[in-house]
């Protein structure tokens, strides 16, 4: 029998504010529903206990700036840790697939983290993916984000990485937070095409969503041949969601899950906590467990106008054409201190909506024909003007890129307040504050 693993971690004692969408109540009715149905008594369901992610596992993937102890990470570490537990269970073949039904969410949290944005502080899926790459030698990963919001954090983390295909299908950024995720965002100089964004017009329902999956997403994933597929299973495409304007039903989510066949689904957003979540979560679980979800019916019916049919198909076709015709236009740039090679510079501003400030970032990617290329990120908090630097040597890095990474570290470690090295290739994470290397035990004590 194919086993389905589940971790249900509703974080009943954690919220971003009493009436905030991300509050204690969010998974209360989901718990009532899935427990009452007897899901945990299905012979193919195996419930796992939540776990806590290691700081090392976080820093391998995300740079927490300016210092770890500035952020309250407990709940986030559990959401990430729980995703890792299910990921391990899949790799160890204890289960066939799994669902990390956890709070808080993570897909808006990117490569550099100065605070909470879009309710996210740590990126659960990204931390899990890099954990599996570091510990299980996984080579290629596909992340399919079916949350209604653009999975901008996940995209940011893997944008320069040719071995991670990031697909996000979401309500158009012109009408919804975070305002990104357009079809011309296709990846960095060594990873062009490994990011795929499909922005949808408001009003799309089951039919349109499934059409886009079947005719664009799934063929792209198949072509990529991933070793593992992760689904960022946000549920705010539901027609009762208060923050967005899409028209997907609970059974539609069941079908989406059946189409994607994720190895692991991780809960992201979804804020219709009575009208949608209990039913969507149930449908996703049943679909993963190979059970019939056609009886999952929300009491509240669809009342908004659904966009579908020919209107939608021609919209999508047009979008696909645009996507195919886009050619990259890199800005080559380097500072005098950079090691030899060609460097592409990408500038961006990242808005932290929860705490209302901006981060300004310059990413330098070493152009490389052999690997994803070492990345240097110069980051500045526009509220406090604190600066910090991240050097990332990617998984599968070539020798030249490794050397480049360590040359950059030598240069920056004495000049910068905070420097993080992510040597993903050798699974070595090092952190310097004011030129002094900080050990992780020290960091742990400070956060405790």
């Amino acid at each position, binding site marked *: 029998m194919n086993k389905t693993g589940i971790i*249900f*971690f*509703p*974080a*009943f*004692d*954690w919220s971003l504010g*009493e*009436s905030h969408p991300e*509050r*204690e*109540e969010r998974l*209360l*009715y989901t*718990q*009532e*529903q899935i*427990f*009452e*149905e*007897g*899901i*945990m*008594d*299905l*012979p193919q369901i195996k*419930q*796992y*206990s*939540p*776990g*806590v992610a290691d700081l090392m596992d976080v820093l391998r993937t995300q740079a927490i700036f300016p210092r770890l102890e500035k952020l309250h990470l*407990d*709940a986030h570490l*559990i959401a990430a840790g729980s995703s890792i537990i299910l990921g391990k269970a899949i790799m160890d073949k204890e289960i066939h697939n799994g669902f990390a039904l956890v709070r808080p969410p993570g897909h808006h949290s990117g490569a550099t983290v100065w605070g909470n944005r879009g309710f996210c502080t740590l990126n659960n899926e990204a931390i899990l993916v890099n954990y599996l790459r570091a510990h299980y030698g996984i080579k290629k990963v596909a992340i399919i984000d079916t949350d209604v919001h653009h999975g901008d954090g996940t995209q940011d983390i893997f944008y320069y990485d040719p071995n991670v295909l990031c697909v996000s299908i979401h309500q158009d950024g012109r009408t919804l937070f975070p305002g990104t995720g357009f079809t011309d965002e296709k990846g960095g100089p060594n990873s062009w095409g490994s990011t795929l964004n499909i922005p949808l017009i408001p009003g799309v329902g089951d039919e349109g969503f499934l059409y886009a999956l079947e005719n664009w997403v799934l063929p792209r994933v198949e072509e990529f041949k991933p070793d593992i597929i992760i689904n960022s299973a946000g549920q705010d495409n539901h027609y009762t969601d*208060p923050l967005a304007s899409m028209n997907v039903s609970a059974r539609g989510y069941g079908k989406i899950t059946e189409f994607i066949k994720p190895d692991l689904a991780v809960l992201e957003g979804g804020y219709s906590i*009575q009208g949608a979540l*209990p039913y969507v979560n*149930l449908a996703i679980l*049943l679909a993963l467990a190979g*059970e*019939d979800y056609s*009886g*999952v*019916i929300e*009491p509240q019916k669809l009342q908004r106008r659904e966009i579908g049919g020919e209107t939608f198909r021609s919209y999508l076709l047009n979008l696909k054409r645009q996507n195919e015709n886009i050619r990259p236009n890199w800005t080559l740039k380097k500072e005098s201190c950079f090691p030899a090679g060609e460097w592409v510079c990408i500038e961006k501003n990242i808005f932290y909506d929860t705490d209302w400030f901006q981060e300004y970032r310059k990413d330098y990617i070493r152009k490389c024909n052999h690997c994803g290329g070492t990345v240097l990120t110069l980051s500045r908090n526009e509220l406090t003007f604190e600066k910090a630097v991240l050097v990332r040597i990617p998984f599968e890095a070539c020798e030249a890129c490794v050397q480049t990474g360590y040359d950059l570290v030598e240069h920056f470690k004495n000049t910068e307040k905070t420097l993080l090295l992510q040597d993903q290739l050798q699974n070595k994470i090092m952190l310097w504050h004011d030129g002094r290397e900080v050990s992780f035990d020290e960091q742990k004590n400070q956060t405790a």
Partner: protein
Amino acid sequence: MDNTIGIDVGGTFTDVILIRGEEVIKKGKITTRQEDLLTTILQALDFVEISDTPSIGHITVSTTLVTNAIIQKRLHPVELVLFPGSGMRISALNWPVPCRILSGELDFRGREVQPANKKEWEVLADDLRKGAATSIAISGKFSHRNNVLEENLAAFLKQEIPELKIALGSEWGQSNFYRRSLTAYLNSACTEIFSSFSAQLRKAVRARGCNAPIRVLKADGGVLPLEKIRPVESIYSGPAASVLGALAQNDGCESYVVVDIGGTTTDIGLVLSGNPLMSSSGARVGSFLTNVRSLAVRSIPVGGDSAVFMENGEACLASHRLGPAYCIGGSHATPTDAMRFLNLTDYGSFSKAEEGLALLLPENERNPEAIQQVALTVVRKMADQIGLAIEQLLMEWKAEPAYKVWEVLHHHPDFRFTIRLNGGGAPGIATVLEQRMNTETIVTDSSEVSNAIGAALAKTTFSWTLNLDTSLSRYRIEETGEQGEWEGPKKPHKEVEQFLRDLALRQAQEMGIETKTLQTDPFDYFPLVENYNTVGQIVRGAMHVPPGVIRRVSRGEKDE
């Protein structure tokens, strides 16, 4: 000083004990007659001479009556009727009994989604009048949040068929729907067999001039008066008895694994700082999953009387028994013989043990070395099976779900476990198990009647869990299924705790529980927000008296 009597009916033997204060006065073991448990229990009572024992505080019985009735399918016919609503397909789970589906649906807060269909009710009443069942169990999805569908149908049927016995799923006020339905069904189906047993037992005890209250041990380690227990709550009290037996013979706040080696089964339980670990889901009995609260225990089919057989020249353990051990006059070799032969015990005859083991070997291989080899293999395999089950139970404990940040961060302090062995086979396996588990293994003093001690000294437990939805003005109590109107404010705080306490105290008094010992768990308040306005709260809270023993027996008691 008060005398206390405990009886533990096991698969093979029934243990009985008479305790005065902290002292074991009399203990005995008689053969269980599975087909006549009443006689077995009366024999046990006569063994401790209840007729001649003054001032008996209480008699506590741990009996397999209901468990056996369920497993052997000696159940009274009950019509099971469900309001499953929409959601997961009902056949996704295995229903061991047929059921009838009616329309009508509630949501997770107990609000009506689809009304019931009176036409179906009339058909049901007609069918009941024609059919054989005199009892019905009615169970609805989310009836633990709102029992309206169940109550309405019950009222309708009461009117139509006054003599019909009606049980409701909501009387078992916990999730989930499947277990609640089966629990209500089972309880109904074994009510008759249990009441006739308890009436006869009471009569027989009174006829012996004893007026002591008779209590029944439950799977969660608590006890209830014979008159008050819901029959299905008496299932699997055996493993609970052995955990309590260990508690009664050990110091207060230690952590240990309890291993009780019986004739054909070994029960394993866990005590953490003096508190038995409860299972996070209800007990399973036969093919029924229930809502019956139980201690976290593992039962494995191996014991001192398990039959030993040879497979490919190697000794193996069967999961059944072929009579008593060879060394005490049986006809087949058992682990008891292996232990006797290895001089791990002095129970039974050495030469008979040797003979029994030798018979397993081909005639030309019956030399001392080969027999020794067989005996060692048997004991090692037994220790291995027990060790594996211990490891699984510890894993279950470590894998307990947690739903709050606080719970995850304070999950599992590093307990160091020792092992406490009970049961007839205990002394023989101790050394080998100690080596297998690499931890101190202690044989409990009165190990052979430890379960009866546990039953005799079991404390009355109490558990009272509130779920309150102030926005819908409705409260529910998990344990009794009580539901009612909340008249307090939408955003309560201290009032809820007082409200719960009042309800709990009323119930506790009714059960004769010392209210001073009630423990209150921290309350969970969920602000209920609709359209960015807080419209009420969902409150969860609980009070309880955990399982335990009323007192401990004094150490070093050795009288036979």
